[in-house]
């Protein structure tokens, strides 16, 4: 055993190694991505790792591994589980052979997500065990031991870390890496693997019969434990449990829930030894619902009593406030301080030299009054350029566009979607739009990488998660085979040409597809492509701000005139925007 300072997702990945994982699949999504990225970067990895095209595809492959007797895992963010929910809901019926862990990382406060859904509810829905870590060390241990739990009950195990686990760091005790010697072998058993009505009715009963033993076992294994210290008590879970431990007075009892389903008898026993109970958990009132069912006459405070919010993330000072409001005691109070007002915000922004900016700038120029459904990726930041009117879930740009067109919206509808998102769930929408003759323009922002989540490869990249070179898929051929007749591939770096293609699309009816193809500027930088930098001739600049409004972080305004900083990547788009040719390539002396 060795103590290391580790990032949550690295510790989770190490837990998999200690459990001798055989296969790992996933689709990138913050805050889950670094688990698979850590595994794929291991120099001496002896197992299979795959970034799949979406979470459903990843889930089903991992499930197949487990059916073949291997220990497998699938990783995704919480909203990815929506995409994988179809196989999830029936995999609990069929059960698993090799340990199977589903990592679904929740994001309270939606730091980088479109909603704050709670994966614990999916686990209850599918009737599978859910592990809910409260620290990096516990996350590591739970993943390591979760494979055995999965094998004991022949059920998938849903592991649900949150952003403050995945993206926090801690000193962690790491164990030895074990290399698996399992061999894949699928044994046919139609009554289990073919879920016809006759078979599935039996499987459903079997699943239900597992629940009582499962609840008891989670207490035996120490996941759900309590410490009686007084006449009042707090029930808590996840990272909130660490805040509770930090702020709660020593005279208040604690029940810590690390796994679901909760044994009602055990929880009732804890509650009934107290006069007053507060439930502190992030997001949905999952524990609170059970606590209220079994509380008898004991008052239970929490979300339903208005003491703890349903939304957002918790923190030590917030937990202290809720504990006090519920009439329980804290160790110490926190000062009330205000953030200074009046500072300009500094939101995340597309990189200097990012071609999404050029593409979106041109779209706005050509389709001035257009409607712009968009999607999920770096380019969602195009909201700052006024070219993102909708973002709801992966792949929904094309379908919202065709839906608006079919609804009779008469403005030009131009949607944007990235290469990875298009392959994830965009293709079906395109087939549908073409077949049903929607009048829309689809711009695929193709930078050949899944950039936002940390540059994971996808089938347009030409390399797999294993590091093997493979022929990249042709987006152009995919779009043509979906039936689109207008498919043009062009780099937005040439604004004149790109604008010309947009104008052609505008003049036509039906589905027009434009593939705005240019590598991600971060990929270019890593490949050591150096195009020099650009500069503004301050004698020529008329201070019209055309380049400043473009929104490149390398362009600043000083004394009313434009100036280009060291952030410049040399993309050269701004020289095409300047109306007086005041920008030129910098000549190094």
């Amino acid at each position, binding site marked *: 055993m060795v103590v290391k*300072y580790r990032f949550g997702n690295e510790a989770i990945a190490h837990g998999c190694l200690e459990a001798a994982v055989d296969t790992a699949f996933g689709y990138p999504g913050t805050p889950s991505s670094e688990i698979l990225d850590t595994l794929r970067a291991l120099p001496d990895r002896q197992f299979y790792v795959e970034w799949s095209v979406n979470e459903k595809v990843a889930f089903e492959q991992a499930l197949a591994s487990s059916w073949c007797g291997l220990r497998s895992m699938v990783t995704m963010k919480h909203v990815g589980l929506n995409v994988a929910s179809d196989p999830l809901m029936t995999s609990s019926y069929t059960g698993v052979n090799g340990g199977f862990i589903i990592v679904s990382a929740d994001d309270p406060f939606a730091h980088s997500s479109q909603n704050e859904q709670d994966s614990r509810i999916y686990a209850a829905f599918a009737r599978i065990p859910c592990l809910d870590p409260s620290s990096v060390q516990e996350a590591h241990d739970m993943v390591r031991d979760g494979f055995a739990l999965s094998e004991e009950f022949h059920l998938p195990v849903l592991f649900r870390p949150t952003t403050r686990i995945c993206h*926090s*760091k801690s000193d962690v005790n790491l164990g030895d890496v074990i290399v698996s010697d399992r061999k894949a072998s699928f044994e046919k058993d139609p009554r289990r693997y073919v879920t016809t009505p006759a078979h599935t009715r039996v499987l459903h009963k079997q699943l239900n019969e597992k629940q009582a033993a499962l609840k008891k076992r989670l207490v035996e294994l120490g996941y759900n434990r309590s410490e009686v210290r007084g006449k009042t008590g707090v029930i808590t879970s996840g990272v909130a449990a660490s805040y509770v431990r930090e702020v709660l007075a020593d005279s208040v009892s604690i029940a810590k829930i690390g796994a679901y389903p909760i044994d009602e008898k055990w929880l009732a026993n804890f509650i009934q030894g107290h006069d007053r109970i507060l439930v502190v958990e992030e997001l949905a009132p999952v524990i609170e619902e059970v606590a209220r069912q079994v509380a008898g006459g004991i008052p239970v405070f929490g979300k339903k009593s208005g003491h703890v919010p349903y939304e957002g993330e918790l923190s030590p000072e917030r937990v202290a406030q809720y504990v006090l409001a519920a009439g329980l005691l804290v160790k110490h109070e926190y000062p009330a301080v205000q953030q200074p007002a009046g500072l300009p915000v*500094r939101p995340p*922004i597309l*990189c200097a030299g990012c071609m999404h900016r050029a593409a979106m700038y041109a779209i706005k120029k050509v389709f001035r009054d257009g409607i712009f459904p968009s999607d999920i990726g770096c380019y969602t930041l195009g909201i700052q350029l006024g070219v993102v009117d909708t973002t709801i879930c992966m792949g929904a740009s094309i379908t919202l566009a065709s839906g608006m067109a079919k609804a009779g919206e008469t403005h030009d509808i131009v949607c944007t979607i990235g290469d990875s998102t298009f392959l994830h769930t965009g293709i079906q929408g395109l087939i549908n739009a073409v077949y049903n003759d929607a009048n829309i323009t689809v711009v695929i922002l193709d930078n050949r990488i899944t950039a936002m989540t940390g540059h994971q490869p996808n089938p347009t990249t030409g390399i797999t998660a294993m590091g093997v070179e493979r022929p990249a898929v042709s987006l152009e051929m995919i779009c043509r085979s979906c039936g689109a007749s207008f498919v043009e591939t062009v780099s937005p770096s040439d604004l004149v040409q790109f604008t010309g293609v947009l104008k052609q699309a505008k003049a036509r009816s039906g589905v027009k597809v434009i593939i705005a193809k240019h590598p991600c500027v971060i990929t270019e930088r890593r490949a050591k492509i150096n195009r020099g930098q650009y500069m503004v001739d301050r004698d020529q600049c008329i201070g019209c701000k055309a380049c400043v409004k473009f929104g490149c972080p390398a362009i600043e305004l000083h004394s009313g005139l434009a100036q280009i900083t060291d952030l410049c990547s040399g993309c050269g788009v701004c020289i095409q925007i300047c109306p007086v040719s005041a920008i030129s390539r910098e000549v190094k002396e």
Partner: protein
Amino acid sequence: MSFDVLIVGIGGQGTVLTSNILGEACVIEGIPVRGAEAHGMAQRGGSVESQIRIGQEYGPLIAPGTADIIISLDLMEAARACHYLKEGGRIFTCREYVTPTTVFMQDFPAPDEQMLLSLIGDRKVTEIDAKKLAEDAGSILTLNTVMLGAASGCLPLKEQSLRDAISRTVPKKTIEMNLKAFDLGKTAGSVQ
């Protein structure tokens, strides 16, 4: 009670590396440590913060008004985060700041150094010419290590642990440069 350090800056400046150095130094000394940071949407040139709690066994988050020190790689970000400082704490900040692109795009009035310092108010501040010192050390990329050096006298960690942690954490080719940056920062931080 832990010794809580808030590190703030702009995505890409190296707040994460700085917090990794502190975490590594804690492991070297056998002190429990917790850290938290922003990823994903929060990168890409936006405001970023790393929280490091030296001697902490529970959660990674620092409550506003309780940080023992703030290390800031940008003066504007120091002003944005100054309410995290506890009474009697100290802010170590780079004297320079980057004006957000939104200011230019939306004609927002650009703040100046005096305005930023007035927002920080009567909190104790040590301003460091970190940009120049980083360049003296060999690269602007060592700005974070300069600032770590500047704050090092206030940290409950041995200087040798910090130096060893730097050597273990930064890219091999840049170890000497970062140690020099640390020393330049340390001198600048202690004379004030």
